């Protein structure tokens, strides 16, 4: 009898490796923070670098990458659990105490320890740069996401333009993935993705443009402030619907998941990716999912505004809470749509995108201009 290498054994070994490395990092950081205070000057520098008010903290922890990655991984768990409930099954169950809540982390561990395979004739440089690009696109959207009044990574006069500039990179990353894989299914998937995103991006821009017209600013913070009395979804429901549908297409979610339709083209542009390369593409997709839901909240659902239920002095936390809650609700709704809908077909989708959504988007633009010209919306340019 040969030795059978069972899975738990393998898992044990890999978790030991991971645990040791995490412990190592903690020790080093702890040492940095607590053993050097003798040099008081250095401590101040360090606090400025990793303190709660520093830019580094904002970018790296909250509301930046760590927070988004946490939400992304847990939304994967939530999606699986939620869809499972809708489909009368249990979903992840055994990892973690409550309903398999640690399943995404187990998945990440599994992906990290898998072999990275690339097709023999692929363009290695591009092939491996796509996962990075995918994560980077998601992460850079977070930079301008206004989670609250006084707590955001950066404020820019043209933050809306930044958002769309970054989203414009998504089709490129998809095409690069398909091209570099040098394989049939990824390439077809990439072309499909390209078609779809270009068809929907214009409608998306025009729907967002009407928001800009009403609020009179390209600054996302100003846009939110313009909604302090009334949300834009009430004023422009058509625009909100158009933006939401284009959002789905941009995120490649059902019913617009053509770029990686399993029964047709296996996994689309992600077919040839394995291990953490696949993992980081997925992570990037889910961070983008969070970020774009956040953009939808910002543009149409009044961003951080909501009734104050925490005592005075905690306004920022209250705002963050409302923003997160609204964003999560948008995400849940997108997940519900995944549960109840089949997939579109490419020609139907293009027809829908170019002939219906574009018209609706323009209609919405006219409505916005009309509202503005009649003087019914007094909050233009923020408060």
């Amino acid at each position, binding site marked *: 009898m040969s030795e059978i290498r069972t899975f738990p054994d393998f898992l044990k070994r890999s978790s030991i490796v991971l645990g040791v490395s995490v412990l190592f990092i903690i020790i080093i950081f702890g040492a940095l923070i607590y053993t050097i205070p003798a040099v008081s000057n250095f401590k101040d520098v360090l606090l400025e670098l990793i303190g709660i008010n520093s830019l580094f903290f904002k970018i790296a922890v909250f509301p930046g990458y760590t927070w988004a990655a946490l939400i992304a991984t847990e939304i994967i768990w939530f999606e699986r659990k939620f869809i499972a409930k809708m489909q009368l099954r249990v979903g992840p169950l055994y990892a973690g105490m409550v309903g398999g809540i640690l399943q995404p982390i187990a998945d990440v561990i599994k992906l990290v320890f898998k072999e990275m395979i690339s097709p023999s004739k692929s363009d290695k440089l591009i092939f491996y740069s796509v996962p990075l690009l995918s994560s980077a696109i998601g992460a850079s959207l977070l930079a301008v996401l206004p989670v609250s009044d006084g707590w955001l990574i950066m404020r820019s006069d043209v933050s809306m333009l930044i958002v769309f500039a970054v989203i414009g990179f998504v089709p490129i990353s998809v095409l690069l993935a398909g091209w570099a894989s040098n394989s049939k299914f990824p390439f077809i998937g990439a072309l499909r993705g390209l078609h779809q995103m270009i068809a929907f991006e214009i409608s998306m821009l025009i729907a967002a443009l009407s928001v800009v017209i009403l609020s009179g600013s390209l600054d996302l913070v100003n846009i939110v402030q313009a909604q302090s009395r009334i949300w834009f979804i009430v004023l422009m429901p058509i625009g909100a619907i158009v933006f939401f549908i284009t959002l789905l297409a941009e995120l490649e979610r*059902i019913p617009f998941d053509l770029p990686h339709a*399993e029964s*047709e083209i296996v996994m689309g542009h992600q077919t040839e990716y394995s291990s953490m390369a696949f993992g980081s593409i997925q992570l990037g997709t889910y961070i983008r999912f969070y970020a774009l839901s956040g953009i939808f909240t910002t543009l149409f659902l009044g961003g951080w505004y909501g009734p104050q239920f925490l005592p005075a002095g905690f306004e920022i936390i209250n705002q963050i809470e409302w923003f997160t809650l609204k964003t999560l609700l948008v995400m849940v709704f997108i997940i519900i749509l*995944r549960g109840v809908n089949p997939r579109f077909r490419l020609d139907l989708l293009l027809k829908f995108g170019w002939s219906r959504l574009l018209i609706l988007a323009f209609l919405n633009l006219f409505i916005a201009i009309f509202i503005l010209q009649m003087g019914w919306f007094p909050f233009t340019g923020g408060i």
Partner: protein
Amino acid sequence: MSELTVTVGPQHPGSGHFALIVKLDGDKIVEVIPDPGYVHRGDEKVSENKNYIQNIPHFERPAILDASNMLFPYVHAVEDLMKLEVPVRGQYIRVIMAELNRIISHLYYFAIYGIFVGHSTMFMWPVADREHFIDLAQMISGQRVGFAFLLPGGVRNDIPEAVKERANEACNYFEKRLIEYERIFMNNPIFEKRAKGMGILSKEDAIKLGVVGPTLRASGIKSDIRKDEPYAVYDKLDFEIPVSKDGDSWARAWIHIEEMRQSMSIIKQALKDIPSGPVKLNLRGQVRPPPGETFTRAESSRGAVSFYLISNGGMTPYRLRMITPSFRNLRAISHITKGLLLADLPPAFWSLDYWPVEADR
């Protein structure tokens, strides 16, 4: 423009155990040539080496989801040659098993349909709801999939008493579920867009190609062996045959939904009307028909399945021809997919409920 040839299957997520050689003009299908035979096991030849009882588990295998319906014409053929009169209770139990099988098979159809159009919920629900009927079939026959339940002269065993109540409960529950199926899948606008007007098989073509079952009825021909040539006790039961005039993929799926409703009604009636008495003739020893030949038919969940049995009085059949519905519906695949887009190929050919193992035999 040059033609592109793509082979879909047998290792493609959107095909079964068979290949489709697709000739494409851009994204448009010019011609589809089905290439079956990957799961051919020579059932007709193999059956000549087995006696009439040993053939029973073997003849279920081509359509294991539809086991009882596949055996129906076979046991009829043997009984016809041996001139046997099957007890009425046995006939009722046969009908119950056949209708349970029809529901199980139709639910599987919806599960795969859901996968092919990317509807994950429509994959999970039918698989979950099949459990009720598989459980009932297991209570009756003692097996969950390959029942081997019908025998020449009756059925293997009597049904336990508990089945009656459970079956009624399951049918009542599932009738409510079917409404949800219609809401989430059949009437979903995206599915309607993808299925309505797709893969049309006109009435004339359906007759010309000699297709059977739901495919035929979706094209507007009211033909069902259960009504045309009532076997077992189908003439004593009250049920309808759903017919649609559209002949498209959606109509074929709709026929499946309605047939499940009718099957449940049949099960309920049969359990109510079932008389007491023996379930099987005691044949005492080997089943051995006298020389002769017979051609018997039954309506399986995919259509008419026929057996042409020629006996020379020996222990084994002299020649046994098995005509399965999928083999007859195979003729329609190249017909309905002409002019569609490649993305529509898997949902379009699956709407025929094509089952490669059954077609290859």
